[in-house]
C-alpha cells in the first residue's frame, strides 16, 4: 500500500491568461478534482508591462509575464496538490521552472505547430483526446505524465476547463468594475 506521500494527487491544475485591451493581463488558475468539480480558483489583478520591460525583455516578455510573474504566483497560492498543471498558452510553460509538477501545454486542434510557438516546447504527444507538449527543457515530464494518465484517465478533455476560467475572469472583472465606478 503506497504511503500518502507517494500517492499521486487526483486534482488537476489549469492555468491560463486572458488579455484585456485596456487593463492588461489577467491570470487564472483552477484546481479541479477528478470529477471535474472546482476545488480552488485563483486570479490575479491586472498585469501590464511597462515600456522598459517591453524593450528589455523583447521576445521573452510574454513567457516572463505569463510564466514567471503570473503562472508561478498563482500556482504557489494553491492549497491542493495537483498531479499536473495544464495550460493552453505556450508562454505559460515558463512557469515550469518554478514548480515541481509537470506542466503541459494543450493544443487546440487548429493550433499552430510547436515550431511556431512563442516558447520552446518539446515534441507533441497524445494525452487522452488532446495533443499536448511539455516545455523543451522538461521533456522528461512526458514520461511522468504518461504514467499519470493511467491513474487519472485515458482521455481527459483538457481544453474544457479553460472556458470556465475565462468566464470566471470575466465575472470577476464585472464584479470589480461596478465597485470601482
Amino acid at each position, binding site marked *: 500500500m503506497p504511503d500518502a506521500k507517494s500517492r499521486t494527487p487526483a486534482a488537476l491544475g489549469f492555468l491560463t491568461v486572458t488579455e484585456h485591451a485596456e487593463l492588461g493581463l489577467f491570470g487564472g488558475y483552477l484546481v479541479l478534482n477528478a470529477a471535474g468539480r472546482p476545488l480552488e480558483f485563483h486570479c490575479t489583478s491586472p498585469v501590464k508591462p511597462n515600456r522598459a520591460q517591453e524593450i528589455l525583455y523583447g521576445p521573452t516578455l510574454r513567457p516572463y509575464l505569463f510564466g514567471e510573474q503570473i503562472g508561478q504566483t498563482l500556482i504557489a497560492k494553491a492549497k491542493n496538490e495537483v498531479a499536473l498543471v495544464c495550460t493552453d498558452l505556450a508562454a505559460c510553460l515558463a512557469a515550469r521552472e518554478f514548480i515541481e509538477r509537470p506542466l503541459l501545454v494543450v493544443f487546440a486542434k487548429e493550433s499552430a505547430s510547436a515550431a511556431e510557438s512563442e516558447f520552446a516546447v518539446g515534441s507533441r504527444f497524445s494525452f487522452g483526446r488532446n495533443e499536448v507538449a511539455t516545455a523543451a527543457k522538461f521533456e522528461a515530464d512526458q514520461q511522468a505524465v504518461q504514467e499519470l494518465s493511467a491513474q487519472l484517465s485515458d482521455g481527459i478533455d483538457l481544453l474544457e476547463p479553460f472556458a470556465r476560467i475565462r468566464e*470566471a475572469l470575466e465575472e470577476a472583472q464585472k464584479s470589480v468594475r461596478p465597485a470601482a465606478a
Partner: protein
Amino acid sequence: MEASPEQLTSLATSDLALSVDTFALGWQSAISRPPKFETTSLDFSGAAPRAISLKVPRVLPRVYSFTFPECPSYFQPAKKKSEPALARAAHEVSGDDAAAEKTATKKPTRIKPPGDIVKLEDRLYYVLQPPLENLMASGEMTFPFEPFPYQFQGIAFLYPRYSAILADEMGLGKTMQAISTIRMLVRSGEIRNCLLVCPKPLVTNWRREFNAWAPEIPLSIVEGDSNKRRWQWTEATAPVTIANYELLMRDRDVLDSGIHFDLVVLDEAQRIKNTGSTTSEIVRSISRTRSWALTGTPIENRPDDLVGIFEFLSPGYLQTGLSAKKMADLVRDHILRRTKDMVLTDMPPKMFRDAELDLTAEQWATYKMAEDEGIINLNNMGEQITIQHVFELVLRLKQICNFDPLTGTSAKLERLEADMEEVAASGKKAIVFSQWTKTIDQMKPGLARFNPLEYHGKIPSAKRDGVLKEFKENKDRHMIIMSYGAGSVGLNLQFCEYVFLFDRWWNPAIEDQAINRAHRIGAKGAVTVTRMLALNTIEERINQVLEHKRELFAAVIDQTGGASSAGLSQGEIFGLFNLRTPKGPIRTAA
C-alpha cells in the same frame, strides 16, 4: 650657395674665442635671475557618461483566491468502469467515433449564476461548475434516457436559483427537470430536505418519476391518518417529502411548528395565483430557503396571476397592476418558459381542426328559446343582475350545444362518432374532454362500440391508475373520456394521437394542458386536436375571448410586451349577451 667640405673643416679648426666686454646695465642682473613660469592645466580625461536608470519592477501581481467545498458524494467518479466526468468525451471517442464527434460538437450546458446572487465567490462557484453533460455522465448518475439539450438548460436554470418558475409548456418534462435538479442538489449537499407539493392525483405520478429519474433518493410520501402524517412531517429523514395541497391544509398546525425545508417545490403552481386563498397562505407560511414553482400556465387570466406566484417565491417582488411590459422585465431572470415549437423541432406536429358545427334542428330550437328567454329574464332583473345569473345562462346554453335536453340529439356527438370510426379502424386511441360528467354520461351510449374508459372526478383516486393502465395496454380501448379537472394535468398519454375537445373550457391554458396529455415527449406521431364549436352560439363568442387570452399570455411570458389584461372579466361575461352591467355600459368580448 652651399659651403664646400673644405670650408667647413677650416671653420671648425679656427679660433672663435673673441673677447667680449660687458657694460653695467640694470637689465643684465635681470638676465641672471631665474625665469618665472605660470602653468595652466588642461584635463584630457573626458566627461563621465550620464547614467539613466530604467526601473524594471518585479512586483508580483496580487492574487484573489476562492476555495469551494468538495462534498464527499458529489459526482465522485464511479468505482467500477465509470470514468471521471472529464473523461466522458474520451470514452465516447474510443467507443464510437461518430457519436463522439457528435457529442464534441454539441454546445455544453453551463450553469450561470442568476442576477440576484451578488457575492463574487457564490457566482464563481456556479460559473466554475463543469458542463452538465459531463456531470450527468459521471459517477453513478444514470438516467432512463439522455435528456434533451433544453432539459439540461432547464436544470442549469433551476440549480442556482433560490426563486424560480419553470413554466415550460406541458409535455416538455418539467417533472424530470425538477427531479434531476433536486437530485443534484441533494447529492451535492446543497440541500438536505425538500418538500414537493402537488395535486393529490399526481402524487403517484411524482413517485413514479422519482423512481425513474432519481432512484437513489429516498422519498417520504405524506399520507394516512393524522398521527402518521405528523410523524412523517416531523420525524421522516428522507431528503424528499411529497405532499398534496389538500393535506397541507389539514396539517397546517404541524407545518407551523418550526419545520424548515431547504427547498419547497410547488407543482401546478397556478393553484396559488390567488393570494387570498387558503392554499396560498399555507404554502407561503412554510419556512424554506429556496422556492420553486412549476406550471405550464403561470398566467391563466391576467398578468396579476404572476403576482400570486411571486408572493410565494419572493414576497413583495411584484405588485398588482403593473403593465405587462414592466412585469416581463421584472420576472425575466426568474422564469424559464419554452414551448414545443421552440425546442422540439423534430417532435411530431400538433394539428388543430376546428369542427365548426351547426346544431341539430332540435338543439337549435331549444337553444334559441333558452337564449331569448334567458336574455329577457336577465334584462328584466335590472339592477339586481349579478355575474352568477349570467353564468347560469352561459352554462345552460353550453350544455344545449352539447346535447338537446329534450331529444338527446347532438351534432357534436354525431361528428365525434364519425371521427372515432376512423380512429378505431386505424387502431389509434383518442382522448375526449368535456367539462361536465353529465355530458360524459350522455355521450357514452353512442360511443359504446369504441369501449370508452372514463377518468373524471367521480372515479375514485385508487382506481385511476388502473384506468390509465387499461387504456394504455388494451388494444380494444380506443378512447378515454375525461373531465378537464381530472385529466388536464400530470398525465402521460403520449400514445394517443387524437384529442377531441367536446366543449371548450373558459381558460385556454387549461385547454392546452389537456391537449398536451397526448402531445408530449414520446409522442409517436402527429397529434390531431379537434375543437368542437357550435356556430352562431355562445361557444363562438367565448372562443373569441379565449383567443384574446392567448395573446395576453404571449405578451408577458414570451416578453413581447403590449397586451393589457384580458381575463374573462365581469364586463366580458356580460358582453357575451350584449348586456349592460349594473353600473353602466360594458365592453364586448371581441
